[in-house]
């Protein structure tokens, strides 16, 4: 009677007892929102990377041995090149489906990184990193770094001029580190740059080390999502103690399965129609030529941009060692600050908030003006650096002087994030005030009443419960107060100075704020606002229909 599938399941269950776990898992509830799919885009593009990458390893030869090219691409006929480059050409022009797979792999890498960044933005702006998910944020952050490492090591494998230029820059950055830099470079390249050792080493990193770590950490990441349950957006009926959504099976599994094919489909479509990394145009690596328009993939572009913005003269010599600040600042300090802030932000915010509660309901970004403003200003700084990394293309496409662009962006790097911070914070506060306004007075109704005595009154329609709940559900966060410097016996308290510092940070975060409407305020507003909330409640009001917020006078109105 039983179907083969059921029989197999039963066979497995009797031997492993897996049925219970599957049943338990299948009934897990997942909240549903499009922004929760961003992590899935990352996951599916990673799966796409694994599939296409496996195909590539079958044909790619990770060797720097020199060979002479005799293949179908005329412009490289008879050129000396490494086996790595030659095998990339063979993949592109001779292996059936090879070029498509190369392009699938590279587009998937760009989309993987883009989706990681957008996923991280979602987690950041909604406060999904708060307790108990701080550790998962750290796991995610490590995944971001591993994604960068995967991209960089893969980009360098074909051994073309463009990727070689990228390696040369990394070599320069490594050498810029005082004292150990040169040793580090010799160690990495197995001797003088470029050497013979690098490509095989990068190959191991790219196909074994990094993907292995990513796979393990993605597993941990998802396990921690299940463990802590997924967060949910605020709404009536949702609290820090429940999860409202669909069961994993069948609804979520069906949606997720379908979504995998969409992600794969979009990547495959791009790979089939749009060329990416045409290494045959760049030619085999040779340290002398650097062509115009040499840039790294987009996720590394901000580093290139920082290098391009930095004035060249900033280097000095101490005790025989050159300290090239012109390289160290853009290539180490800038990413150090960016990644440092990102890695530690959940802990900094918890420290400034002084909050040890668990959070499962997400923040609306407007309700955390400092965080939202900080996030936007980091993004703006990143974007300025990306523009700086593309300065030559901006110059040719908009007929501008590259020198002017560089100067403008040097200032913009400091001014634009500051301006973005102020503007975003103002916008958040204004949106919060608008929320208060709505809760207290209701929607504008575009109806104006005129009383017999000639007084004009605007009619408001009160919010329904759901609308109101979203706008009042969050807790106000106030700056931390410092306990007095002396205890009850007048003894100087240990840790007072640290408390003062903490209170200062807390004020920075939360001094400017708009608090949600309290029940008391709401009650007060309703009792005094009765007459304008309920049209025609009192007899002496004569109704005059108004058109869309404009005043409308009747005949005897003059």
């Amino acid at each position, binding site marked *: 009677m039983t179907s083969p599938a059921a029989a197999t399941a039963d066979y497995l269950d009797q031997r492993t007892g897996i049925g219970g776990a599957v049943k338990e898992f299948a009934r897990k509830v997942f*909240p*549903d*929102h*499009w*922004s*929760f*799919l961003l992590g*899935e*885009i990352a996951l599916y593009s990673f799966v796409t990377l694994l599939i296409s990458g496996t195909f590539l390893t079958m044909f790619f030869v990770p060797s720097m041995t020199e060979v002479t090219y005799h293949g179908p691409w*005329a*412009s*490289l*006929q*008879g*050129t000396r090149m490494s086996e790595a480059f030659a095998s990339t050409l063979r993949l*592109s*022009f001779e292996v059936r489906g090879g*070029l498509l797979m190369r*392009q699938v792999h590279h*587009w998937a890498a*760009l*989309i993987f990184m*883009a*989706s990681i960044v*957008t996923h991280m933005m979602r987690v950041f702006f909604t406060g999904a990193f708060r307790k108990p998910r701080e550790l998962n944020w750290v796991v995610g952050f490590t995944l971001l770094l591993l994604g960068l490492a995967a991209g960089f090591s893969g980009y360098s494998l074909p051994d073309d*001029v*463009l990727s070689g230029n990228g390696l040369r820059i990394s070599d320069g950055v490594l050498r810029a580190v005082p004292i150990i830099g040169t040793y580090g470079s010799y160690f990495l390249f197995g001797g003088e740059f470029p050497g013979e050792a690098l490509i095989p080493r990068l190959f191991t990193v790219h196909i074994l080390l990094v993907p292995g770590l990513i796979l393990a950490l993605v597993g941990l990441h998802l396990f921690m999502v299940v463990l802590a349950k997924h967060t*949910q957006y605020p*709404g009536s009926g949702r609290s820090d103690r429940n999860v409202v959504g669909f069961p994993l099976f069948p609804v979520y599994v069906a949606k997720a399965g379908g*979504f995998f094919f*969409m*992600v794969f489909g*979009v990547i495959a479509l*791009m790979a089939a*129609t*749009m*060329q990416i*990394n*045409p290494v045959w*145009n760049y*030619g085999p690596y*040779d340290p*002398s*030529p*650097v*062509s*115009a*328009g040499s840039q790294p*993939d*987009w*996720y590394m*572009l901000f580093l290139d941009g920082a290098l391009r913005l930095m004035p060249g003269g900033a280097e000095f010599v101490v005790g025989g060692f050159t300290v090239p600040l012109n390289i160290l600042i853009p290539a180490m300090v800038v990413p150090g600050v960016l990644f440092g802030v990102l890695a530690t932000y959940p802990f900094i915010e918890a420290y400034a908030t002084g909050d040890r509660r668990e959070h499962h309901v997400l923040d609306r970004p407007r309700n955390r003006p400092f965080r939202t403003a900080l996030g936007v200003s980091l993004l703006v700084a990143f974007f300025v650096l990306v523009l700086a990394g*593309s300065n030559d*293309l901006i110059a*040719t496409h908009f*007929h*501008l*002087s*590259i*020198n002017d662009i560089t100067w403008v962006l040097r200032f913009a790097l400091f001014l634009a994030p500051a301006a973005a911070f102020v503007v975003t914070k103002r916008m958040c506060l204004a949106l919060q005030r608008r929320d208060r306004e709505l809760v207290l007075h209701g929607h504008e109704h575009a109806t104006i009443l005129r009383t017999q005595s000639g007084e004009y009154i605007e009619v408001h329609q009160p919010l329904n419960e759901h609308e109101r709940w979203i706008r009042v559900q969050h807790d106000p966060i106030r700056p931390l107060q410092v306990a007095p410097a002396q205890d009850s016996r007048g003894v100087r308290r240990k840790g007072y100075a640290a408390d003062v510092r903490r209170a200062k940070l807390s004020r920075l975060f939360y001094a400017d704020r708009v608090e949600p409407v309290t029940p008391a305020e709401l009650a007060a507003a309703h009792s005094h606002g009765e007459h304008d909330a309920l049209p025609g409640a009192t007899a002496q009001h004569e109704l005059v229909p108004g058109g869309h917020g404009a005043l409308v006078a009747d005949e005897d109105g003059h």
Partner: protein
Amino acid sequence: MSWFAAHRHDRRAPLFLLLLALLTTGGVYALLVPPTASAASTTSTDEISAGQKLFTANCATCHGPGATGTAAAPSLVGVGAAAVDFQVGTGRMPAQMSGPQVQVKPVQFDADQIAQLAAYVASLGPGPSIPTAEQVDPAKGDPATGMALFRTNCAQCHNAVGAGGSLSQGKFAPNLWQTTPTHLYEAMLTGPQSMPVFNQATLTSEEKRDIIAFVTKQGGEQPGGLSLGSLGPVSEGLWAWVIGLGALLGAAVWIGAKSS
């Protein structure tokens, strides 16, 4: 001979020998290398005088009567027919607006007039002449050698496949995909504006032809689909965000639409 013998201990003898050596090598060189200004001698005087008229009407305001140069524009004595054919044939001359770089605009003279102008300027002093069809024939060049030469000599300004690139202060190296083989050759030979001159010693005429063979293959259909301007990773990244992530966000919103 006795005069030499008598004076061989003279203090000036080494100097004299050096002069003699220089004269001999110079003479041999002149015999072996064909004169570059040969075109001037084959053109008729009619053509030259027609060219002079055109020049006086269109060019003399900047380059001065007799093309000897003014504060506004350089002297054209000795720039040769190749420079004129390139500058006028690509629409750069007569120059118009002043800016960081003389811009290309629609060509203002027909082929005959350009030849007349070229003949006139070539008559002013010997300079590089217009290359023959044989010298610029892409079919006779080797694109692989051309690619290697292009990478070391041209790509730093013009991009790996000649898509163009930026120089300092608003100057730029243009895209080369529409440039005719003759103009490619002449650009190398005369080095317009910020571009260096690639004379016979830097790139032989065979090597120039190899480069032409490579450049004329670029910009057409490319393996792997749309070339996105052949501008490298920046344009790829832009499209990854706009098309790739754009479509996927659209799909995510669509899937998540019936939620909360």
